[in-house]
């Protein structure tokens, strides 16, 4: 099977090269070559799917002759995690990269098969170039062959690290990867547009969805990673400004900027250099993320070991950056803006500010992440920056972003008159002020001014967004006569991009509220309690009722039952524990070795809308360990036949002696020893219940942290709404030409302006000017169209 896989991977590599070559050969418009190029890309995708199926079936069958299976799975690994173990390996994650890229490339080429004839060949070549790079890595770079085999095959594998056995870890890596990889599509089309000098908004219209999908995947991946850290690592935080986290955040931030600034190019023909540079930056950051995880260049809690592919990826980044920069510079004349910003009080100028903020934030994080290298360069000492440094810059930038998230939707495109501005800003500003006063009067939020500022502006922004929905729905009700709720649904589903985007804004603001509250007003204590003792933290009485022990085939769990009381009333019980996994895939010689594996915390979590109560336990198992040592000694004595040892020892010793030179009997004897040792370990573990030793509990009272997860999910839902194809789009996608798309976009702008006018955002005067401009532009488009 492995050799079949290798062959298929080799074929896939050839297919990627062939698809790129065919596309370039047909770049002058040879329909046949282009069709074959596209089919070859589909074939490439099919081959990679086959490769993944072979690997996954090897995981499912426990086929330890596959090196990748032996090192990352074991017989005891639960089935779901067996399948997810593929991407916990270096080679498997590269395979996943290639697979996702092949899927994204196929989807992009299918979607554009009737469009952008001149540009698609170049985009195909770029995507397949990247695909060939990653497939080639697996084939030719040392130690990353997913089909490497072991001969003889071991009886059992090493197993998946228990820390990674968490539901969100099964989907976190594929989500991040899909995010990283999907940015290849807009990047490739941008390169195509630059090469062919087709620098209107067509490449953006064709790939906007992919950028949004990439953004949503990456964001969801980040959220899952944060959730995993919060519930699984026994640390209680969700973000640490660790290089690998930063590496995923940076392309997400740049992607956010890109999603906003492309709207300016679509509507106004501006920011062309900026957009091309942003997508190049985003894609490079995605590659950099892939690189950082595998390079060991920076000290990270995610230690990924030495590896062999780092330098190659760095090479690819260099090629991407230098090539794209040269291309952009050589096309500067074609990249000139078609128009200028009319007024500072317009949506496009707010988008520009938001872009600068996002890019500024990325720059800060980039500097901080790579500071150890920078400082080594200048001072010769590797020095690193901790979370407070990052917070100092990202906090004000995030607050400013919230401010502009609030302002942007309230302004119309092109220009806003003073009169209409006064009208739309009145309510949001009032809400912001009321929130501030209420927080100062009724809470101690003023003890942290940054947090207070964030809450105030969040109130302002959320009120503005609510007003947008409200006045939009009211305008629609007037136009169509639908009742309120129906008008709201109709409004959102007819303007999915706009209102989906607003829902994303709501989600991100809610998420930031959760972050601000939980990071500024958290109570974090370590307490030592003996069974029966209590402590009071933040008005909650926590009583250590009793210790617990659970033993199963793969781990020992030492934990506790805690009674939680608020204001003297029982509100529930928490059961934090710590699991000590048995090492798998190696001979266990002593009872002590049963405790030598990985340990993980199972957090006791009581989530709530206002507070999370989070408790992790560090049980004191010193007494148990003493017992283990004594048991090991006893066991050795038993095997040696020390006088006074129980009669079973004699039988066991006899079995051992009889088995010398007989492999079958020897295995039986060893098996029996292992059974006895395991029994002894269980008995010793039970003594934990009687020791009455004090355990250390880490108790965190985290205000509003639940809203972080809820906000993230709201944002995801908003992205899905914005992505969902409209009915017309679904039918029209098959036949739509570029001219149709351009017309459609302009009509949408006209409808948008009408809605803004009806909703009171545009004054009659502003609307008259804007409408005349838009209609003129629409006529221009119609004039340019050849008469059929």
């Amino acid at each position, binding site marked *: 099977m492995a050799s079949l896989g290798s062959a298929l991977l080799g074929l896939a590599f050839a297919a990627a090269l062939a698809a790129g070559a065919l596309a370039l050969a047909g770049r002058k418009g040879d329909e046949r070559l282009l069709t074959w190029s596209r089919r070859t890309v589909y074939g490439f995708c099919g081959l990679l799917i086959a490769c993944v199926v072979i690997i996954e079936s090897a995981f499912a069958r426990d086929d330890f002759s596959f090196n990748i299976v032996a090192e990352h799975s074991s017989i005891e690994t639960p089935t779901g995690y067996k399948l997810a173990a593929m991407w916990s390996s270096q080679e498997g994650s590269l395979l996943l990269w290639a697979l996702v890229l092949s899927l994204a490339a196929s989807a992009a080429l299918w979607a554009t098969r009737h469009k952008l004839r001149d540009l698609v060949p170049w985009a195909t070549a770029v995507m397949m170039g990247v695909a060939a790079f990653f497939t080639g890595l697996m084939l030719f770079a040392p130690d990353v062959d997913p089909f490497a085999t072991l001969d003889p095959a071991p009886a059992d594998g090493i197993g998946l690290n228990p820390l990674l056995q968490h539901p969100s870890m099964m989907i976190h890596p594929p989500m991040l990867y899909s995010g990283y990889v999907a940015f290849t599509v807009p990047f490739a089309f941008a390169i195509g547009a630059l090469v062919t000098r087709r620098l209107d908004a067509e490449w953006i219209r064709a790939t906007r969805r992919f950028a949004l999908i990439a953004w949503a995947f990456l964001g969801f991946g980040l959220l899952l990673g944060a959730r995993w850290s919060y519930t699984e690592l026994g640390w209680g935080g969700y973000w640490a400004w660790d290089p690998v986290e930063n590496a995923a955040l940076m392309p997400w931030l740049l992607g956010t900027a890109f999603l906003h600034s492309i709207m300016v190019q679509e509507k106004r023909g501006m920011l062309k250099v900026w957009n091309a540079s942003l997508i190049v930056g985003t894609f490079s950051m995605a590659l950099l993320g892939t690189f950082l995880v595998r390079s060991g260049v920076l000290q*990270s809690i*995610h230690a990924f070991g030495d590896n062999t592919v780092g330098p190659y990826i760095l090479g690819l980044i260099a090629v991407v950056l230098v090539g794209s920069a040269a291309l952009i510079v050589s096309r500067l004349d074609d990249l000139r803006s078609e128009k200028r910003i009319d007024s500072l009080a317009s949506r496009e100028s707010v988008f520009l500010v938001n872009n600068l903020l996002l890019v500024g934030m990325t720059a800060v994080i980039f500097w901080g992440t790579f500071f150890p290298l920078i400082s080594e360069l200048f001072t010769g000492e590797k020095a690193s920056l901790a979370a407070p440094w990052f917070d100092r810059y990202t906090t004000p930038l995030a607050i400013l972003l919230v401010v502009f998230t609030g302002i942007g939707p309230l302004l119309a495109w092109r220009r806003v008159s003073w009169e209409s501005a006064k009208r739309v800003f009145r309510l949001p500003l009032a809400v912001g002020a009321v929130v501030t006063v209420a927080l100062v009067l009724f809470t101690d939020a003023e003890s942290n001014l940054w947090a207070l500022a964030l809450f105030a502006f969040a109130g302002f922004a959320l009120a503005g967004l609510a007003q947008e929905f409200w006045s939009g729905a009211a305008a629609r009700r007037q136009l169509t006569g639908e009742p309120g709720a129906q008008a709201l649904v109709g409004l959102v589903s007819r303007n999915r991009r706009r209102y989906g985007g607003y829902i994303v804004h709501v989600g991100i603001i809610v998420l930031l509220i959760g972050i601000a509250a939980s990071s500024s007003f958290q109570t974090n204590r370590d307490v030592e309690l003996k069974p029966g003792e209590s402590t009071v933290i933040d008005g909650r009485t926590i009583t250590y009722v009793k210790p617990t022990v659970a033993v199963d085939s793969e781990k020992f769990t030492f934990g506790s039952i805690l009674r939680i009381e608020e204001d003297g009333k029982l509100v529930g019980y928490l059961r934090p524990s710590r699991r000590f996994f048995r090492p798998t895939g190696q001979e266990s010689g002593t009872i002590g070795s049963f405790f030598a594996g990985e340990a993980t915390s199972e957090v006791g979590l009581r989530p709530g809308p206002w507070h999370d109560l989070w408790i992790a336990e560090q049980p004191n198992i010193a007494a148990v360990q003493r017992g283990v040592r004594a048991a090991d000694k006893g066991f050795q004595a038993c095997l040696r036949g020390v006088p006074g040892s129980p009669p079973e020892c004699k039988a066991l010793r006899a079995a051992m002696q009889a088995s010398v030179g007989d492999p079958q009997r020897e295995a039986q004897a060893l098996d029996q020893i292992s059974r006895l040792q395991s029994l002894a370990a269980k008995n010793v573990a039970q003594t934990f219940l009687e020791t009455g030793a004090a355990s*250390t509990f880490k108790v965190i009272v985290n205000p509003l942290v639940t809203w972080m997860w809820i906000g993230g999910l709201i944002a995801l839902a908003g992205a899905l709404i914005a992505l969902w194809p409209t009915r017309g789009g679904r039918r029209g996608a098959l036949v739509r030409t570029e001219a149709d798309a351009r017309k459609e976009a302009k009509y949408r702008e006209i409808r948008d302006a009408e809605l803004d006018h009806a909703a009171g955002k545009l004054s009659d005067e502003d609307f008259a000017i804007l409408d005349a401009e838009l209609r003129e532009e629409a006529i221009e488009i119609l004039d340019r169209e050849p008469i059929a």
Partner: protein
Amino acid sequence: MDPQRKRKIRLVVALSTAVLLAVALIYTSFSASSEAKEPSELLNAAPGTSYEMTGRVVKGSIQRHGNGIAFRVVDRDGFGQSLPVTYTGTVPDPFRGGREIVLTGAMKSGTFVGERETLITKCPSKFTTKSDG
């Protein structure tokens, strides 16, 4: 004001903001960072200065010590003289003998005293090879 001039002013304002931010960034990062050292370099380090120590926990050296732990670390390559370390508070899940840790703290009478909440243990095994089973 004519638009040409207005644009120029805007550009100057934007650029000076960027430069100011960059200067602040550089200044604060060099002053806020703590130097990274390995245990062997710390043995003779001046007491009181804050360092970020990266080292490998010596197997079997971890002992509970009141509300905290005491253990010894060696350089990441596993050689050299070991350095005694104390740390108060709970330790992260992956912490055990043989693991690489990053800890911020200072030397105090021959012992490296870690600051609370700064102990980072590297996540093992994801992408690592056989060396770290």
